[in-house]
């Protein structure tokens, strides 16, 4: 008896030196290990929201990306301006 639907792994990677960086998916905090996190979802479970927040000094750069699966690949990179903050959201459907 196998599972009705196999889980899909979504890999989220970050490049950030700031201590004040947080990422969430569907409201749950993403805990990174070596700047990478593997999240498991049941396919066709609706739309998911990846959110991130950063506070640091102006000029700080960061990058967040979904590297797998290919159909939801995304990469976002930015450098903080004088506001010293950024927050973003990305919706994806598996």
């Amino acid at each position, binding site marked *: 008896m196998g599972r009705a639907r196999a889980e899909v792994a979504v890999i989220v990677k970050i490049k950030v030196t700031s201590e004040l960086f947080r990422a969430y998916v569907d409201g749950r905090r993403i805990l990174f290990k070596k700047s990478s996190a593997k999240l498991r979802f049941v396919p066709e479970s609706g739309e998911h929201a990846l959110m991130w927040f950063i*506070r640091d000094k102006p000029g*700080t750069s960061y990058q967040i990306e979904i590297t797998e699966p290919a159909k939801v690949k995304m990469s976002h990179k930015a450098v903080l301006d004088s506001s010293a903050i*950024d927050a973003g959201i990305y919706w994806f459907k598996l």
Partner: protein
Amino acid sequence: MALPLPAAAFLVWLAFPGAAAAQEARPVNSLMKADIYREFVRREIRDPSLSSPVSAPAVDFQLTTESKYQKAKAMVGLRVGNDLFFDVKFIAPLSSGDAEVEPIDLDGLSKSAVVDTGVHFLAWNPRLDVGAAREVFEEYLRRNPPSSSSAAGGRPKPISLLLLRDEPDLWRKFLEAVEWGSAYFFAGRFKIGRQGFTYADADFREVSTQKTSRAVEAAAGVLTPRFGYFGVNLEYQVYFDAASAVELIFPYRQGAADQIKKMVMSPPSRGERFKIQFEHRKAVMEHIALNPKISYFPGERIALIELPVYLFKNADQGLNGGVTLSWVSKCGGRFGLGIFIGTAFSLFP
């Protein structure tokens, strides 16, 4: 100061021998002289070091310090968990300092080679109103329809505050959807320093000894969304201070002449110091951050006010640096000015 005509012509000849030949046909007027000076003379005699007795009347700025306590610092930091950080600083005094003069920050370990380790914990839980963000996203797509010919093939893109900079109304709406919350910071540090001392015993024989100074520090603070970081730091130090040197007169090679020798006649003394410090950190402009600190030493009833001003190009490139203005209430009050280079500003201590 106006240049006499022959001098101006000479300068033209020096700068442009060929052009000078052409100038022979017409007189050098004052406008030309100003141009010649600006283009060819001032550039050459400009003196950015401000050390030459001859220099152009330009505006130059240079910071100089004659601090008796120069230090080199190196720091290695790493993330040991999602909210836990570890760092170690290696601090080496570059000068022997002056036993008679205390450093203005009253750091008992300032003359020692110090290893300073710290563990930090950070708690922060920002939130985003997904419904409001969705409205912003839909409106952004309406205004900026994705190109079907793009590499992403019209795939939805992420949106962020920085991406919405050119749409002020959407930027504001997105910002309002973010609940930044305060970030709470806790840290513990342990410092250990080793310092060598030399003094003379009662028979005027030189004695060398090494002493270990140490300090423990606890820090806590909150980073507010609007007003920056406010923190309180407590530090307890055990340190050693060299005794004051005295001048002694000895017979020179058993002869009739005398020689004067400066000697420390007693071993280093052990001191203890407790410090309570309040600090604020905030980036006030794109390239400037302030970090005012007020410290109090209850045992000695001394107050210290410091204002480091950080200047940086950006976080990832180039040297950071700045100026620290200080005032300590000891001995009727003393002002200090220090400069630092390569110290990156951080929102947390």
